């Protein structure tokens, strides 16, 4: 069944590009817009904030420890007299960067495995069993092994912080791609059987080009959703690693570490957990809403409207 009347009328003048389309659809989703606003605010605060609030996050003022909010220290201070606002801002830079890059890596791996498994029947079984393996791998020993094997090389090449950053991103990335792979595989299986794939093949396209130009864009919406969930879980995983004492050097605050260190001080100085906790939750929440909106915006059923 075709629907002739649908589009003939409105489609005449509007100049549309995929991004503009996406944006138009996205705007229709109030939650997504709110999420985007919050997220942009957090990113802006974290990266521009230190230019306004210029206290060095690692400056110790032991006399001013455990203070509540004040004009000089809007978020108060911790038990060593670090300024909490500066720490939250600095921590945000790392947490967001970890979240983004780890998400990108896990997305890349997940999509690669998912597409290959879905597209090439021959390696489907082995790849899915590989996925099982990674689901079963214990994260902590893996992290220890990776740190042991690569830390010094990376430290020599990139310096201590970037080195550990790469390690953490790598570890989170390679241990979190499995769900993306499963979902992408399912989608690829569905898309693969559609006629336009056959059409592309019959016009003599290379298989890899078919994957890149036709399969990938059509599984994009679930990839995008995985992406937003991925940022969230990467931030949380990083904080769980801090919780377990692995991760960045202690003078590098991350939201997870701030939250963990602050947990004991919950009663003395609630703002120590409040702010990093709120920062993590708000980021994850806003990213989730953005993800929902993107999924709706990319939904072909919505496109038809």
């Amino acid at each position, binding site marked *: 069944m075709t629907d002739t009347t649908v589009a003939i009328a409105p489609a005449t003048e509007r100049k549309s590009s995929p991004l503009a389309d996406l944006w138009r659809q996205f705007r229709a989703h109030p939650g997504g817009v709110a999420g985007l606003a919050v997220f942009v605010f957090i990113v802006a605060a974290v990266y521009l904030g230190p230019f306004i609030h210029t206290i060095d996050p690692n400056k110790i003022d032991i006399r001013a420890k455990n203070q509540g909010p004040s004009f000089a220290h809007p978020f108060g201070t911790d*038990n060593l007299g670090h300024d909490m606002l500066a720490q939250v801002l600095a921590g945000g830079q790392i947490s967001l960067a970890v979240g983004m890059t780890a998400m990108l890596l896990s997305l890349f791996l997940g999509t690669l495995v998912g597409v290959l498994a879905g597209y090439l029947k021959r390696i489907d079984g082995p790849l899915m069993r590989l996925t099982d393996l990674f689901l079963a791998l214990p994260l902590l020993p893996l992290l220890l092994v990776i740190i042991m094997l690569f830390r*010094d090389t990376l430290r020599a090449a990139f310096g201590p912080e970037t080195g550990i950053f790469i390690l953490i991103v790598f570890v989170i990335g390679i241990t979190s791609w499995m769900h993306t792979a499963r979902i992408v595989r399912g989608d690829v299986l569905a898309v693969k059987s559609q006629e336009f794939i056959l059409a592309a093949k019959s016009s003599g396209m290379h298989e890899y080009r078919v994957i890149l130009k036709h399969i990938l864009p059509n599984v994009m919406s679930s990839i995008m959703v995985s992406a937003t969930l991925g940022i969230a879980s990467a931030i949380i995983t990083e904080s769980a690693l801090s919780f377990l004492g692995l991760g960045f050097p202690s003078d590098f605050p991350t939201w997870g570490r701030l939250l963990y260190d602050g947990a004991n001080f919950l009663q003395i100085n609630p703002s120590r957990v409040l702010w990093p906790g709120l920062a993590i939750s708000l980021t994850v929440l806003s990213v989730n809403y953005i993800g929902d909106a993107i999924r709706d915006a990319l939904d072909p059923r919505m496109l038809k409207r």
Partner: protein
Amino acid sequence: ERGTDGDLKIIFWQAVSTMNPYLSGGTKEVYAASMVIEPLARYDETGALVPMLAAEIPTVENGGVAADLKSITWKLKPDLKWSDGTPVTADDAIFTWKYCTAPDGGCAQAAYYEGVSNVEAVDASTIKVSFAEPKPYPYSAFVGAQSPIIQAAQFKDCLGVKAPECTSANFGPIGTGPFVVKEFKPNDVVTFTANPNYRDPAKPAFASVTLKGGGDAASAARSVLETGEFDYAWNMQVEPEVLAAMMQAGKGKIEVAFGTQVERIDVNPYAVDPSLGDKRSTKEAGPHPALSDPAVRKALSLAIDRDIIDEAGYGDNGKPTCNILPAPDIYVSTAVDWCLKQDLDTANKLLDDAGWKMGSDGIREKNGVKLSFLYQTSTNSVRQATQALVKDMWAQIGVSVELRNISANVFFGGDPASPDTFQKFYADVQMYTNNFDGTDPEKYMAGWMCDKIPSPATGWQGENIVRYCNPEYDALVKELGKTGKLEDRAAIAKKLNDMLSNDVAQIPLIHRGQPSAVNATLAGVKMNAWDSELWNVADWSRKK
């Protein structure tokens, strides 16, 4: 009166994994086992030996210790009974010795039986321990919580390789202590009931004990100090202000015992540049370009304000110290207190004089070598706070520091393949705590001898982590081994301590106590740093 005070609830946030201290040398296991199995003698809260199963402490004076210092003879208390009602005999002690020295048994307390050439029964209640060499300090085997007597009948099939397979014995050893194991859930919870055959019929006051494990220190503290769910919590390594806040609830307080634990910073005398590969941190790597300079070492020590570190991380649980050997009192030196007070001016001057010029980036350097160090320690919030503070203090004398923290099970794990162990010391400075068992420092002080330096040749084993090597020191340690008289031993030990501190082989920071949380309703707790904290659990009772 026995069993009238109900249930005693103890929380160990590191859970107990076995009840046999010979199979696991962990402190928590030793403490838990100390409620059940007992040695011949143990240390009281002052560090003095008190008899447990023995009738009295043998000395040269009372003839218990042979004049040639080659044997010691213990006499058991009369009518001692195991909790199953059978009598305790000298054979149990002999068996214990065999058990711990059996090849392939992997006994964690084997060091206590070092130098013991024979254990024999003079009669059913008299035990003679012979040594191969004269032992000026013979109170090692069967002394202290680490070396209790186990029942021969129960463990007779568990010698050597069989030791780990005797699960029920390991989890529920029959003992002479105030309590018997009722149920053991490894790494979770142990329940005890009062020993019906305990030698003092009025004790213990509690009918049962629940020893719960797991979680973290802060929440364990909370369960005693704030919610009052538990009576006693061990090892409260929590920031002092957090504990103070919890104590506001008035349900309990923190008790501290000071033993020999010293938090210290090791300063590496050897080069550790990663480009040296396997040679780094060994003699072959050559001296450290900066840290081999005594002026730098001294300046580093002087620049530290130990009071601030103490206040931020330890509070009442620690005292600033400049001694590696901080206790017992007779060994405490006062000759090295120059470092107790932070003196940035002197430190800066020392560095200036030694030619370390302040660079434009605020970091001193000389001949292209920067005072820029890698500072590693294990993962632990108090240690990380200390790291941050030290970094800040050293920055004031133009020393920059890169911090690193390593998971404790790697740092202290000693895996020769790992670059992150404290024995390998692939860092410029590192921080941890060490101490010694009992009250005699001889073995401890021997740990700084040249031949104890870890190296690839020894599989990175060896106690001399700081790689201190001074022939004078070695000679003095040998002399200590030959000295019998306590005062003379103390004088030598102090000298050794002063050498270490003055050469800044290590930078002692804090003399750490053992803090435990005690519920306000609990009476009879006497904190003891020389033995198990639960050493006198038989005397504990509920306040009426």
